[in-house]
């Protein structure tokens, strides 16, 4: 089943074109890595997929499970199972983590026509998910991301993902700011969530993450286009030769 189809996607911010014709198909159960140098458009792609304000889509389409995503609000996408793990998770002072988790889960459940979980069932569920990312229960009662270390913030993102069980997860630079131990914990969490019904797109600058979460496909994004696609060996090649060679690649070479 096709989970996501991006066709000839062009997007601008403040009139400047950042995405210049992206084509990408992700099937159910696949893990794709999107790599590329700074400024290639990686974060723009994840923001556009999640529906962030401020980007204008000038051409092309994004189909999620066959449905056009572009006209949907961010929350409508989220409720349908599109999840973005943020590169910089946002702090919300005074709002406890457990409150946000519960509100998010209930918003998704409501869309699915399910009843809200009561406090006891919810807590049981959250505890089981917290084991995945080795989080202590005290995290539930702290304000969302406030005073969290880099590693804690990223683990919190994966906890949210584990709880919401999205069909399509976009992991934006999940490895940034993580030491080796934290990287391992986060990766193990993500790997545990790999499933034949779930697709993932990992956006990363470095190959390092792909040692822990091994992708099915690797794409190189440069100057707003996918200039090369391959399997996990492509990432190794990039590590050896860096990104400089792709600037020499002829226009229009893509997946």
């Amino acid at each position, binding site marked *: 089943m096709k989970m996501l189809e991006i066709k000839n996607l062009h997007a601008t911010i403040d009139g400047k074109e950042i995405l210049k014709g992206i084509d990408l198909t992700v099937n159910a159960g696949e893990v794709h890595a999107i790599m590329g140098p700074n400024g290639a458009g990686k974060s723009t792609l994840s923001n556009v997929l999640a529906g962030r304000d401020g980007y204008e889509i000038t051409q092309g389409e994004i189909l999620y499970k066959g449905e056009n995503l572009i006209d949907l609000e961010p929350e409508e996408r*989220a409720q349908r199972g599109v999840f973005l793990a943020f590169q910089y998770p*946002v702090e919300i002072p005074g709002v406890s983590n457990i409150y946000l988790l519960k509100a998010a889960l209930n918003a998704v459940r409501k869309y699915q026509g399910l009843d809200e979980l009561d406090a006891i069932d919810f807590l049981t569920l959250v505890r089981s998910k917290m084991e995945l990312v080795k989080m202590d229960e005290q995290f539930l009662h702290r304000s969302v991301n406030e005073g969290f270390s880099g590693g804690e913030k990223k683990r919190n993102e994966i906890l949210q993902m584990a709880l919401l069980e999205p069909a399509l997860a976009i992991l934006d630079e999940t490895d940034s700011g993580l030491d080796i131990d934290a990287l391992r914990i986060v990766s193990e969490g993500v790997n545990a969530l790999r499933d034949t019904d779930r697709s993932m797109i990992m956006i990363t600058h470095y190959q390092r993450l792909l040692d822990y979460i091994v992708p099915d496909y690797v794409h190189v994004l440069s100057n707003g286009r996918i200039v090369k696609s391959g399997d996990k060996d492509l990432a190794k090649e990039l590590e050896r030769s860096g990104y400089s060679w792709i600037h020499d690649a002829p226009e229009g070479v893509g997946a």
Partner: protein
Amino acid sequence: MTDQTQQLETLTRKEYSAGFVTDIESDSLPPGLNEDVIREISRIKNEPEFLLEWRLKAYRHWLTMDTPIWAHVQYPEVDFQAISYYSAPKKKTDGPKSLDEVDPELLRTYEKLGVPLDERARLAGVAVDAVFDSVSVANTFQDKLAEQGIIFMPLSKAVQEYPELIKQYLGSVVPYQDNYYAALNSAVFSDGSFVYIPKGVRCPMELSTYFRINAANTGQFERTLIIADDDAYVSYLEGCTAPMRDENQLHAAVVELVAMNRAEIKYSTVQNWYPGDENGKGGIYNFVTKRAACRGESSKVSWTQVETGSAITWKYPSVVLQGDNSVGEFYSVAVTNNMQQADTGTKMIHLGKNTSSTIISKGISAGRSQNAYRGLVRMGPNAENARNYTECDSLLMGDRCAAHTFPYIEVKNPTAKVEHEASTSKISEDQLFYCKQRGLDTEDAVSMIVNGFCKQVIRELPMEFAVEAQNLLGLSLEGSVG
């Protein structure tokens, strides 16, 4: 303006749900103010001579005063001759003896507003005194409270039954000379609540007053007096609403609290007076003087307020810390939207030794509103080792509103310690997008972020009130972040 800002703008434009008018006959005095009107109010209430004299002194003093102009608010001059100073629902008898005798139309009004007046009150454990326009219409649980010697009744009734207490305490915290609106209130106040908690008694339930302005062109000038004798405790709740009317209505109340040795008074307000429409038409002018005296040693008074209504708010619940080791607290959330203006804060006057005070103020401005915090912390010469901590945070929603902070600090004792922290922030697009990406719609996201911002204050409210306050915050902020 970005889409998100626009969404927030729409979101903050919600209708005022308490804005209906109750169709009930009322007896009102014709508009206008002079000594005859004051004599008439006093006569209707069958007041003792001393009270009439006090009213007249207040009135004569008021005539010599000028409208205060220092507050950061702007409004056309109030025409005090156009206001009716007394309005009461028409009664068939001399006043309700029990709930059965209260006009069912009135009861329905309070039911609509969610005030538990009848059996529901017992379940909720809240004793309610409801003030409709100028008079108290129902007062639940008086008998039960009386068993413990607690007096909880309309002020007009207390004047008849406990004139000596009234004579002793009325105006003892807020004298009629205090300020322009306090003088006016002292001259024309019509009713309000009176509470006396005897020595050593812990009031077993929350006491509550619900204020409702219904009639057009009336002012509401209620007066509340609460006395907690040695070692007593009471928690008191106050709620307010008014119908939507195009003209402005004046609410000039006075609240006086007296805490004796080791007594504690907790006073919570959820104020949702009609704020006017989005163009600033109509709404309540809320010019209120609230002050507590911590007379006894180790006494404590906490003010907690959630202010979302009124066209103009001018209000500084204060604590005079006379007794050694006494404690004053002020927790406030003030929300302004559309054309609302608020100039609110507190005064902590430290006179006794080792007195301490805490001020937590959260201002939220949206639309084209103006929200000012004004606070005075004064450490008197005898206030050895007195301490104050002030935290003053402002949250801006949108780019056409404003937040102001005016702290005044006076320290006359070298051992006193004063801390002041202030911050101003905006609800960021990042926060909103983050919440929306987790499935929350804009309204829920804003409400969640705002409630998080106000958490330190909300958690000071009694449980039932906290829920009401949280809902109100969401409602009041339909449409203004950026």
